[in-house]
């Protein structure tokens, strides 16, 4: 395979990238240790509080419109973590590019050990790390959690939450002028769940689109995986609808904006032709489409079981 035909190299495979990750990790560890030594809660001091203050700052810059602050802050955070997100999507895309060969190997080698060896060889040859999409996600994970915590403190709305907020704001009078935060945005009261069902439905629809589009480059290799993907594609949006009905609308607004941005990034990474919109919009893929690239229809569970049984012999 020439370099040109190779799929994009992804993951922290590059030595520089790996060093940067390690450096970042070391810095975080040192900061956590120093904060704990100073008798402060590292999680809030290093992660949650800066985000809270940043959000309040956005609120003030955007003329006290906290809804706008959430939207722009989400955009900002997604921009900051964009390299990681793109890397994650590229990893998925690269894995997808070698799927025909993966399936060939799976067809050709019935012995699991040999099959695994051949797959590893293929990954090495293609310069693809099968776990490459995990690392960027793991790094983003604490940021998401911290962002959630920050939003919850801010959009709590109730006076008890404002008492708690007082413990997180930095001593800067410009920030205090935002208190209490304006809770109304469009038809929403950001501190309360949206009783009109509009936001929960929007969050559900965009979560579905985001799920489908972000996995547009990937192909289920087994019927089990395909079934799991289908279940996830339906379960996740429903779960988010349910949660949006229960949590403050400010959090729902964050999910909505974040989903829309994810769809945009997927479009950017996979390109116009990389996304099969028909497949995206169908909740259940047509049988022939499930093994795109492999050229074989979906096998039934029973058939798959039969093949495994024969393989054992």
């Amino acid at each position, binding site marked *: 395979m020439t370099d040109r035909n190779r799929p994009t190299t992804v993951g922290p495979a590059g030595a520089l990238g790996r060093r940067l990750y390690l450096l970042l990790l070391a810095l975080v560890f040192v900061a956590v240790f120093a904060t704990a030594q100073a008798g402060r809660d590292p999680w809030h001091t290093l992660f949650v509080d800066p985000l809270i203050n940043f959000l309040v700052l956005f609120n003030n810059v955007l003329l006290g419109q906290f809804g706008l602050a959430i939207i722009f802050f989400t955009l900002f955070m997604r921009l900051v973590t964009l390299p990681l997100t793109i890397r994650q999507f590229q990893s998925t895309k690269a894995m997808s590019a070698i799927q025909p060969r993966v399936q060939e190997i799976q067809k050709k080698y019935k012995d699991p050990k040999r099959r695994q060896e051949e797959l590893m060889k293929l990954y090495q040859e293609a310069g693809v790390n099968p776990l490459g999409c995990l690392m960027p996600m793991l790094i983003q994970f604490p940021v998401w959690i911290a962002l*959630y915590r920050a939003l919850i403190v801010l959009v709590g709305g109730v006076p*008890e939450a404002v008492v708690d907020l*007082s413990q997180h704001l930095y001593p800067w009078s410009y920030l205090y002028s935002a208190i209490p935060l304006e809770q109304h945005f469009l038809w929403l009261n950001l501190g309360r769940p949206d009783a009109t069902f509009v936001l929960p439905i929007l969050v559900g629809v965009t979560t579905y689109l985001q799920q489908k589009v972000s996995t547009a480059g990937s192909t289920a290799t087994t019927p089990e995986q395909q079934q799991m993907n289908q279940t996830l594609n339906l379960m996740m949006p429903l779960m988010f609808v349910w949660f949006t009905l229960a949590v403050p609308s400010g959090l729902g607004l964050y999910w909505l904006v974040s989903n829309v941005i994810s769809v945009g990034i997927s479009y950017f990474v996979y390109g116009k032709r990389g996304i099969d919109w028909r497949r995206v919009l169908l909740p259940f893929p047509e049988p022939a489409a499930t093994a795109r690239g492999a050229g074989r229809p979906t096998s039934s569970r029973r058939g798959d079981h039969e093949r495994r049984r024969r393989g054992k012999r």
Partner: protein
Amino acid sequence: MMALLAGLSLLATACAAAATPRGWASPVVSQGQLYVSLEAGRLSAYEVGSWRFLWRFPGQNDSKVRPQAIYGGPVATADAVYFGGYDGNVYAVDRAQGGLRWRFKTDGPIIAPLALDESSGTVYAASDDGRVYALDSRDGTLRPGWPFRTDGSIWARPLLDGNTLYVASMDGKLYALDAISGRKLWEVDVGAGLVSNPVLADDTIVVGAVDRRLYAVDVSSRRLKWPSPPRADNWFWAEPLVVGDVVYAPNLDGTVYALSLADGSVLWTFAAQNPVRARPLLMGQVLVVVDREGIVYGLDAATGSEAWGRQDLLRRVLADPTPVDDQVLIVAHDGNVFRLDPDSGQVQRLDLPRP
């Protein structure tokens, strides 16, 4: 699978911490009855001493009445009890039976305690919608000339002094209004959201702000009295207590300040373990302070030294403690009630009967 796990974790985090209004109304004793909110959005009445249960509002049959939460302690007359609900309504409840007399809807949650002028039969309610309403205490009708509108939410109790109503708003201004007509007499712009209940003493209004300062406004000159208002590390949310020429002001940074009313100079400070939102209470020479995590302190009012050992209620406390005879009632955020002997510092749980 990772996405699913991530989603589930985030959602669990989000939902575990979603805030619901609970209220922090301080208990009020009036004419032998105790009015206290032990559950979110409900006000109960007890006979003081025997602690016999009298009524609860809203009752079992008031399914359409939902105050959600009560943040301001009620005010009572001989025949009615008034309070503001987080649902934005001002409620008037029959003192004998606990039935609804009337209610008046404002455009925002009511967090501030109400003010009552018994002589004119007027209830003053400040709302989060930024307005102050003057209501006829008999039927809840709005008095002519009202409401008065400010440019920020109002979370502090309107302060009535004669014919003047003082209103501290989150827009950073202290307003003086004609209590009858609702006309603005004057205003002082502090420049930071005023969050604590204002207190009037010796022609001076003392009020806490979110810029971490405590302000004193001279009512006669309509100017700030202290040349350099004392600054803490957090907000002065607790209602200050003024006794003689000393101001006792707890702060959300966990410090209790004793200040000179004359010039705002610090007389002494006491460091509590946690932020303090509840108003302090002076019982004899002992200043009773309760911090947010339920630790009770008895301080020598003259020096700030501890008069007795700290008592830990092991419960969050945001409501102001209330004197009942020679004891102090403390209502925790979970609805548990405690009785404190301010002389010895002994705390006992008071099991109020519930319907």
